[in-house]
């Protein structure tokens, strides 16, 4: 068992029995479930919408090379710059170079899971550049020095009392402020930061090939402010976020809003097509899009695994996952948690180190049912497990265990050998400890159905 698997198990045990965590998470998720149900009802035919969306993403990924070049051509025509970053290090260094060129000391950024993936904040801070998260949930997490808990709602595990206490400790405001006041406190603090920052960094929800633009979706307006005051806008995105056309947004914007937060449409939807043009009153002097690979082309090359790249990061799979519900986002210890993280992380990073994420699932299939782009999530978990076995990441004792199972299952004679008492004894010795202290073991019948059937005749 690897270190990461050990830690995961230990943390799972701790979180799963933490009743305070359970209470908060059950509350937050019940809100999400209600929103999800309402969101589904907004479609006249949600199944057709999901299938259509899957087809669009299929087309985008099958032709990704062509579309990415089309995006670059159209975006650079208007003076935008495109950087192709092979991996996290190249992306980080590209950002740092831009900061040095602009002599930037402060960055404001909007919520972006890809920036978590490349560990951007810590890197910039180590290089003496201040980074301020402007999304309220991310701002809360930054104050608490914690990574985001959920890909859409970074602080969903914190109650209003937790946030009030955090603000009291870190920002010196009165204890016990209500949510409306806490929001105003954050708003006031952040207003100055937008004005002072030299660079604004955002993520991207969709890369639009035909018009050479990137679409950013948000509820707070912080991405807009992060790209309005600073003179330089850096947008970082995984290469898979591509849509062939701006016209595809009329399906994807409502899909993302409905599945992500039960809304008709998210509050602010912006399309950035480059720096300030000659005839425009304002906008950043410079806009750079960093296209990040970081293992995505490896996944793309696998025809079965490829569909995981259709993900639009709506968070629905996290919300419906009973494992996530019991262990929470932090237990995964990876930027992407829940079912998407369980499939993607072993593929993007390292199967040997992260396969436990694909095994930590009861395969209930709720994720597959919830996905707006119809990714067969639980089938992909099974594929990862198979890959792990084929690539020899399993222990010899486990391999032998399944070999023994196979021998027994091929032989009715073996299965009938030994009475119930012997089987109870053997199973309790082999599995008793693993079955745990919180459950009684099932009891073997003295004779199997097959044996009893013979006697009946």
């Amino acid at each position: 068992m690897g270190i990461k698997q050990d830690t995961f198990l230990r943390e799972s045990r701790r979180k799963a029995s933490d009743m305070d965590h359970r209470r908060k998470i059950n509350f937050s998720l019940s809100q999400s479930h209600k929103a999800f149900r309402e969101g589904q009802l907004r479609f006249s035919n949600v199944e057709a919408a999901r299938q259509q969306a899957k087809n669009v993403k299929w087309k985008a990924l099958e032709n990704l090379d062509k579309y990415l070049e089309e995006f670059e051509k159209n975006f650079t025509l208007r003076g935008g710059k495109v950087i192709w970053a092979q991996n996290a290090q190249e992306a980080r260094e590209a950002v740092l170079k831009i900061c040095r060129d602009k002599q930037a000391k402060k960055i404001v950024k909007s919520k972006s899971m890809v920036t978590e993936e490349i560990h951007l904040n810590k890197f910039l801070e180590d290089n003496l550049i201040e980074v301020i998260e402007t999304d309220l949930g991310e701002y809360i997490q930054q104050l608490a020095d914690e990574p985001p808990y959920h890909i859409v709602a970074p602080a969903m595990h914190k109650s209003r009392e937790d946030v009030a206490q955090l603000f009291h400790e870190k920002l010196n405001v009165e204890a016990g402020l209500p949510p409306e006041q806490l929001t105003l406190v954050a708003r006031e603090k952040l207003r100055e930061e937008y004005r002072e920052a030299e660079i604004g960094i955002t993520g991207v929800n969709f890369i639009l090939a035909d018009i050479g633009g990137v679409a950013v979706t948000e509820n707070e307006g912080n991405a807009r402010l992060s790209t309005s005051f600073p003179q330089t806008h850096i947008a970082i995105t995984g290469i898979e976020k591509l849509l062939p056309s701006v016209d595809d947004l009329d399906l994807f914007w409502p899909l993302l809003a409905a599945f992500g937060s039960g809304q008709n449409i998210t509050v602010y939807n912006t399309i950035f097509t480059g720096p300030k043009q000659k005839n425009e009153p304002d906008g950043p002097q410079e806009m750079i899009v960093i296209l990040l690979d970081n293992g995505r082309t490896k996944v793309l090359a696998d025809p079965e695994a490829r569909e995981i790249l259709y993900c639009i990061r709506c968070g629905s799979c996290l919300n419906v996952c009973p494992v996530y519900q019991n262990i929470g986002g932090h237990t995964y210890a990876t930027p992407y948690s829940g079912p998407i993280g369980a499939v993607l992380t072993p593929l993007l990073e390292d199967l040997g180190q992260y396969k436990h994420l694909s095994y930590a699932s009861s395969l209930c299939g709720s994720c597959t049912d919830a996905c707006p782009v119809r990714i067969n999530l639980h089938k992909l978990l099974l594929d990862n497990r198979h890959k792990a076995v084929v690539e020899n990441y399993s222990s010899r004792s486990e391999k032998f265990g399944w070999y023994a199972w196979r021998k027994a299952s091929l032989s009715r004679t073996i299965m009938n050998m030994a009475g119930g008492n012997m089987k109870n004894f053997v199973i309790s010795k082999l599995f008793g400890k693993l079955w745990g202290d919180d459950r009684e073991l099932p009891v073997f019948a003295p004779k199997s159905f097959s044996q009893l059937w013979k006697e009946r005749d």
Partner: protein
Amino acid sequence: MQVSVFIPCFVDQLFPQTGFNMVKVLEKFGCTVKYNPNQTCCGQPAFNAGYWSDCKPVASKFMNDLADAEYIVAPSGSCVGFVRNYYERVLEDNQAAAVNFGKGLFEFSEFLTNVLQITDAGATRHGVATYHDACGALRECRIKEAPRKLLAQVKGLELREAPDCETCCGFGGTFAVKYEPISIAMGEQKVLNAMNTGADFIISTDWSCLMHLDGYIRKKGYPIQTLHIVDVLASGW
């Protein structure tokens, strides 16, 4: 009508009585029941663990053991769902046969309502029950209404819906032992929500779920029992 029964490995070994109750109900409604005692397991445990090359010979044998049957009925949504939806992948060199085989395979409650067109099994069982939608039955086989229709006709039984009836119980095969703390927490939430409905029984189509929940209930000494739908429908006559 001739019906072959598929007795899942864990029903064979742990709950043979449920197998006999299923035969009893099928015979009541005019089925001639056949059982091939050579059958052992559909192969799902190895497949779910990633050991597809160990699964394949077991799946092949299973298909052979039940090859001649027009109708095959099993007291398990999980096994039926696996054969229907995954045998094509497992038996990649015999895909047409695998798909065809899946078409003749039915979970017990869907067989009663959809094929035999029965909703009243003539059973009696007093008490308050809540039904648990086993994941294999619900999502792999799309079974939702059939068990409820059948249980609604059981004399003396009051059915109450738990708010999380569709949430996974936490068994998931080897997940239950490899990730025991998560498995227990999931089971715990199911049991507590079931008890909150005031139910005396949790009923489901799958012994895999029920034995996991039952293990937890017995450890805690809670006043709720697990029952398989086959056993309920065979009660009182």
